[in-house]
Structure formats: C-alpha cells, structure tokens
C-alpha cells in the first residue's frame, strides 16, 4: 500500500479552502451582473448540498475576511 504522505508535494486545497474559493469564484464571475449578490446566492442554493452551505456559514464566521464582499452579502441571503 503506497503511503499517501510520500506522494509528491500535492497542492490539494483543503475542503474548507475549496468552499471559500468556489464561493469567491462564483461571486467574481457574476460581478458584472446587475444583482450579483442575489444571483450568487441563488447559484449556491441551487447547486450546493446543505452540508456544503452549512460548512461555508461556519467558515465565514471563523474567517470573516475570507469571503469577498459580494460572496459575503450572498451568504447572508441564504437563510439555512
């Protein structure tokens, strides 16, 4: 069994980093739209599992500056 740790220096984002990165990326690509934060929220509600949305809430709380303004505003719109 090849021990995972010896594998080449991997550049895998942790799950948390990836969720932050995904949220910011969605926000950045919808920035040019009229109501970017509403659209970002709608997108996350439509495509993310409940667990992913909940995890993002926790992360946003732990690291308030991690999310971009649009992403942060969008998150506030997502009730759950």
């Amino acid at each position, binding site marked *: *069994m*090849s021990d*995972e740790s*010896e*594998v*080449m220096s*991997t*550049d*895998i*984002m942790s*799950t948390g980093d*990836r969720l932050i990165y*995904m949220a910011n*990326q*969605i926000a*950045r*690509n919808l*920035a*040019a*739209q*009229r109501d970017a934060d509403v659209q970002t929220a709608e*997108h996350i509600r*439509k*495509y*993310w*599992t*409940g*667990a*992913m949305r909940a995890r993002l809430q926790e992360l946003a709380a732990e690291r308030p500056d991690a999310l971009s303004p649009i992403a942060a505003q969008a998150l506030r719109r997502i009730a759950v």
Partner: protein
Amino acid sequence: MSFSRETDHGTPAAIATGKSVTLTIDGQSVTLPEGTSIMRAASLTGGSIPKLCATDSMDSFGSCRLCLVEVEGRNGYPASCTTPVAEGMVVRTQTERLKQLRRGVMELYISDHPLDCLTCGANGDCELQDQAGAVGLRDVRYGYDGATNMGQAKDQSNPYFDFDPSKCIVCSRCVRACEEVQGTFALTIEGMGFDSKVSPSQGEDFLGSECVSCGACVQACPTASLIEKSVVEVGTPDRAIVTTCAYCGVGCTFRAEMRGEELVRMVPWKDGKANRGHSCVKGRFAWGYAQHQDRILNPMIRASVSEPWREVSWEEAIAHTASEFRRIQGKYGTRSIGGITSSRCTNEETFLVQKLIRQGFGNNNVDTCARVCHSPTGYGLSQTFGTSAGTQDFDSVMQADVILVIGANPTDGHPVFASRMKKRLRQGAKLIVMDPRRTDLVKSPHVEAEHHLPLRPGTNVAMLTAMAHVIVTEKLYDEAFIRERCDWDEFTDWADFVSEAVRSPEAIEPLTGVKADEVRAAARLYATGGNGAIYYGLGVTEHSQGSSTVMAIANLAMATGNVGREGVGVNPLRGQNNVQGACDMGSFPHEFSGYRHVSDTATRALFEQAWGVSLDAEPGLRIPNMLDAATDGTFKGLFVQGEDILQSDPNTHHVAAGLAAMECVVVQDLFLNETANYAHIFLPGSTFLEKDGTFTNAERRIQRVRQVMAPLNGYADWEIVQLVANAMGLDWTYDHPAQIMDEIAALTPTFAGVHYDRLEAEGSLQWPANDAAPDGTPTMHIDGFVRGKGKFVVTDYVPTDEKTGPRFPLLLTTGRILSHYNVGAQTRRTANTAWHPEDRLEIHPSDADNRGLKDGDWVTLRSRAGETTLRALVTERVAPGVVYTTFHHPETQANVITTDYSDWATNCPEYKVTAVQVMASNGPSDWQRDYADQARTSRRIAPLEAAE
C-alpha cells in the same frame, strides 16, 4: 447468398429543385425529381442497369462504361450514370445491342483480372463477379499472354485492411471516396493509360501514407482489391444488425455484419442520419477490444486495495455490494455514499444508476463524467436559450455560409462530422478557427481557414466579448431578430457592456496575443457572411470561465440572428457517445431527467409517486466534492459505472487521496481500469455490442443500440444495476430496455414521445419528441426560445488563477487524437496503437531550442500539481509558450499535471490551462514508477485454486 446488402442506386439523390420529370424506361412511365440520373431512375422503379464505377455515396464518374443505355433521338449509347432524365425521354436499358456492348467491356475487364474467384476474400460479395454474371460473360478471347496489371505485391501494412493492386479495376471509387466523402485526398491514380494504378500518397504503403484509415475506400471498393482483413480471415458476412457506435458524440450508425455469431465487420449505415454512410477508424475498425483478453468476465471482491482480487459468484458480489453500501450508510449516514454514471453506457443504464442512487441510496449524490467535458454547455445554454443541448442537426452544416470553430479539433475528435464540414468548406463556405493550436482545419489539403485566431489559452471570454464589441459598435447586429426573439433591455445592457473601449479588440490584443484587425475581420465575417454556425468543443468548456464562454457564444449567435433555422446555431461537439444522454437522464446531482431541479416540488412529486419513495430535495455532491468529503471522512462509498475518474479527472493525487479514503468503491467496467486500483468490488460490464438500449448523440438524436452477440460477462449493464437495486431492497422488474425508456418517457416531458417502436420505424428521433414535436426537433428555437425570450448574459473576462511564472513559464493544454478515444481504455486494446503508441508533448521549436530539446527526447513535464515524463514532439502546430499533449495512455498520466481549478459554475476542470515547466529528463518520474508498482500490485487476481 441471400445476404441483404443495401441497394445501391448508383448515383446520389438529385439536389431538390422542386420540379419533377416524367419519362418512360423500358416501356414503363416514371416520374422523378429533375436532375436524377437515368441509372438512379431505373433503380428506383424496379429496373437494374449494370454498373461498376457508380455508387450512390459519390458523384457519378462515367468510367466503367457498363451502364450504357439507348435514348430515343440521341445517337450513340450514353452512360446512364452521367445522363440526367429529361421530360418525355424514352429509354431502353436491356436491348441486345447493349448486352453486346456490356459483354465487350466486361471481356476487357476480365482480360486483366485474376481468375481466383473461388479462393478470393470477396467471393460472393464482389460487384465485378456479380456484373460478369449479369452481362453473361462466357469468353475472354484476348488470352493471357498480353500485358497485365496482375502479379503486383499486396500491401498489408494497414492493421485492418489489405490492398491488392492485382485485383484493382481502376474504377477510382476509392480515390473519389477519399476526396468527396472523407476529404483527406490521400489517394490518387498514379501514371496514365493501362499502367494507371491506385496510389496512396506517393506510391507508399497505406500505413505510411496520408491515409487516416477511415475505411471509406474499403467500403467503396467493388472488388477484393481493398478488403477488411477480418473478411478474409472469417469470411463474407451473412446477416447485418444496425447499431450505434460507442465512441464519440457524432453517433454514427453502423451495420454490424455477422457471419453466424461472429462479428465480421462494421460498415457505416447509409441511412444513418448523423453519419450519412461515413465512418472513422475507431467506429469502423477499432471494435476488437470487445473480445480482448483483458476483459474481466467474473465478479471480484477484496477487503482492501492492497490484497489481490478474489473471483466470486455474481450472487456473492451483488449481495456484498448491497450489504457494504447499507453498512456504510448505517455507520456514516444516508448521504455518505453516491455514484457516478457513465457517458458511454446507454440512456437506460444511466437512468437506472441515478434511480438506484435516488430511490435506493436515498440521496442525490450522483454525477457523471459530463462534469469534466460539457457541463458548462448544459449550464450556459440553459441560461441563455433555456435548453442544455445543441440547436442544430449535423445536416445543418451543409447550409452554413460561415463556420466558426472554437476550441475544437473536429478532424481528430469528431472526424465524421469534420468530413461533412470540410465538404461544405470545399463548396465555398468560409471558416474561422479560434484555437491556440494550428489544427488541421486552419490549413490542411483543400481546407484553409479564412481567419485563425491563435489566442492564448484561457482568454476565450475576452476574445468573444471583443468580437461582440465589433458587432455592436459597427451596428452589425440583427435588430429585428433581437427585438422579436430576445429581451431588448437585456440586449442593451449587454450591448453597452461589450461596447466599452476596454473590451475592444485593440484593448485585449496584449492579453490574447491576436492582432486586433484579425479579430475585427473575423467578427465582421461571422456577422455579415450569411448563415453563421458555431461549433465548439472542450477548448471552450474546460476552463475556469467555461460557462461564461458558452454564454458569450450564445450572445454572439442571438446578436446576429444566427439561431432558429438551418445552417446556423450553437453546436457543442460533445465528446462521448452518450454524454448528451447521460445529462438528459438526470446524472447531475442537482436535477432529475429533462433538466428539472430536484428542489422543484411538482417534478419531485412526479418521481416520488412513480418510485414510491420520498426523494431528497437537496442537490447532491459533485465528483470533486465527493472526493473532498471522502478525505474529510464523511463520504465512504462509491458506485462507478463505465468511468475511469483516476485517469480522466484532473489532479490525480486528489482523486487518489479521495478514493483511498473510501471504504467501499464499486467499479463496473470492461477492464481493470486505473480507478479499479482503489476498488473493493469489481462487477464486469458489457460492451455496446452485447446489449440493447439507446445513445443520444451531440445533435440530440436518440438512436438504437442493438445486441449483436451474447454478453461475455453474462449480463447487460442495466441487468447488473437491477440486481444491485433489488439486492438493496428495491423491486425493479424490467426485462427489456424498452420498458425503461417507457418509464423515462412517462417522467420526462422532452422524451414523452420516445418509444422503441417509434425508433424502429423512424431509425432515430431528436428530442424534444412529444405532442408539441411529434417527429422530434432537428432544429431548435425556430419560433421562440425554449425559455421564451433569448437571454443576453453579460460575461466579463476574469483571468484564471492558473498563472505562468518563472517556475512554470509555459501553458499546457490537452486534447485528443483521431486514433484514440478518451482514456484509451478501448482503443489501446485494438490495433489503433499502430498510429499513436504513446502520448507526446507538442512543443514549439523556439521553446525546445532554449531548453536544448530535440524531437523525440524524453522530457519532464511538471506543474504545481505533479510531474510526469513523456517524449517531446517539436512542431509549429503550437504557438511559442504553449505546449500540448493527449491523455490516452496511463503510463504518462497527463492528468497528474492538471490542477484542481475548474469552471466557476459547474466545476468542469480547467484541463486547458495549466502552468508548467518542461526540461530534459532521464526517464520516468518517481511518481510514475510508484504509480506503476501500485497499479501492478492492485491488479493481481488470486488464482482460483488458492481461493478454495
């Protein structure tokens, strides 16, 4: 021999002019379209005129002179293949005089032809043999002491067919097929007069010539001069079953020609509406993998991936699968398991896998490999047009005036469609190619793009927005179309956005590296050149802005009114045979079949009522999220059907880590693929030749796949899924895929009218096929857009985070080559390796020089995600600063290099942009060696005795 060959009317159907003509042939009055040849007219009305150089897949040639007829009032004996019918014409086709002339011609033919009919590979299937009989040849008075073309060496270089010049009657059907049908022009006639000889390229053997081995010439050859090796070995076929190819998204239909139970050859079906009687090397010849010894035929299980496999009975394997999944759900929760559907299995099988997961597992953790190719298409086109599929059928290209190809290399990826596109280009349509590489469509024999925009990888949105800038600022948009079919306010928003100076071709030139006036010229041509048709591939979707690019494309089409009629449209060239079907069937975690969101209560109620369970309203995990959840310890079980995510998905380390963290990985496939290295249960799958079902190709055409031979592994894939489902407590009672399609039709509005009896009758249907469109929908959005008004979406260029820098100065983009398909699992187990035995790194001479690299050297390719080694191919096909490779061979594992950046909307991986460094290497990287060892150990199968 009663083998029902398709009737060959000798000449193609006339180009419709609306007018028809009445004439008499052999005393019978017939009425036919103007322009029809006398030969075709006779054939269509029950008559038959001898022919050898005429075949209805090509224009008439008039060289064999067998088809002479008499026409009242016209002297001499015109050839019926090259003489169109005329009003009031009186034709006689069977007079004594004609018989005498035909015998005279045949006597000349046979004076220069070997007499070995009884031992010839084409015995019983040779037009020369048939015609010699038909004209009643009894004598060859010329004797055999004169000059002949016999006794020439046979060319057996091509792995699939032989070329025997001694049996050639120089009818040029092969040369014409290579020109008109395939468009490669690899054959010619060498010399003149009696010494005329068919010659690949410069008189070389076929394998060494420009031939791409599409098989059109072999199919066209009336004698045994060009013949499949399988026919020579096995014998001529005696029955044929029409089925659909399991390789790319063109969806070619073939006649699987059998001799008893043995498949002799695959011949493209003339009535196939996607391929119109043409094929490529993969569909035509590379089907040998179905009987390859690597096929796993017995189920196997093991406790951990470090142990060798243990063969078990089906019952044990199925029960073990069910119990493991239930165990994991018990321990880690309902959502701790999920599955991946295949884009290579049938619609019915894909539907059952997502049903197993939703009804059986009770969650929406289902995804498909469309995730990594055209998921942005689904998202982008549904946002703008309201439907997740291409707008045209393939025939539509023949009405196009301007063809814009973006991020696609059809001559390699969709060869049969590329041949039809090349034919249209030779008729005068103009071509624009937007691709970092100088693909064949940019310039190759008889094809030349009007404009090539070699943009830097990752700058698609900037380029398309700049083209929009030109179209809007120079008022080239179709205002009437926009006002009628789109939302004017949304258009003006979009128009103002794209008009800003910062989005002009001049502004983005430093970014894309393409001269501004080239961009302006291309934009003007697309907008004003007549019917504008856009075809795009993974070079659009596999980017961090894949979805934005698709929407930018849709914007261009709407702005110029190029939607809703023949010859225009937005056409994704979908990679795999059923990737469109896989998406249609609800393989994505967020939607049911027909692209309806899981949160939509009405739709969910429909499925809950049909399946008798309450369904999860929450979207499930996508593949990358499954792997993340696995490393986090919350996702422990995975069912993978016909998919090899370890080789095809990006950032191999990430995939490996995810798989390794799971407790039960079930793989259902033909061979022990790379993903199986981390699997605990292996359920042997069946090939497309061994089961019934349907595939849906890139033009939404649903076509039948018919069982040609009994499944070697004992079950069709849908039967296996049913076994697992019932073992998990469900009570599925399907005994034929037709019933599954009926269920799909009942639950999916766009498939409402799709049933097997209709598919048998019509040959194929393009969805939506329902009461609103009883005969299917060749062209979409004719009157209005599916979503009502076409939606202009503002798409702003956002640079990818994958940046080049001193450590990784070059940009890597990936793709596919003609002879291989996807990860090569099938094609590597056929003779296709003759053309592409290893993945090569294409690198520009200047980049190679300043690294001291020569063509063929071993090089190390390294990105921040990983490193591998392969041999260099120094070429000007790639621009300076850009390198390219394919991902067909596991030894190179190109995807160890690709990073985990992906499309913002669908997480489609950014295969096309990876910052890399290339340097001389002295051999395989450590990782490759470790990987090879791991793969070897993991593929051991314990010998049966040891198990007792």
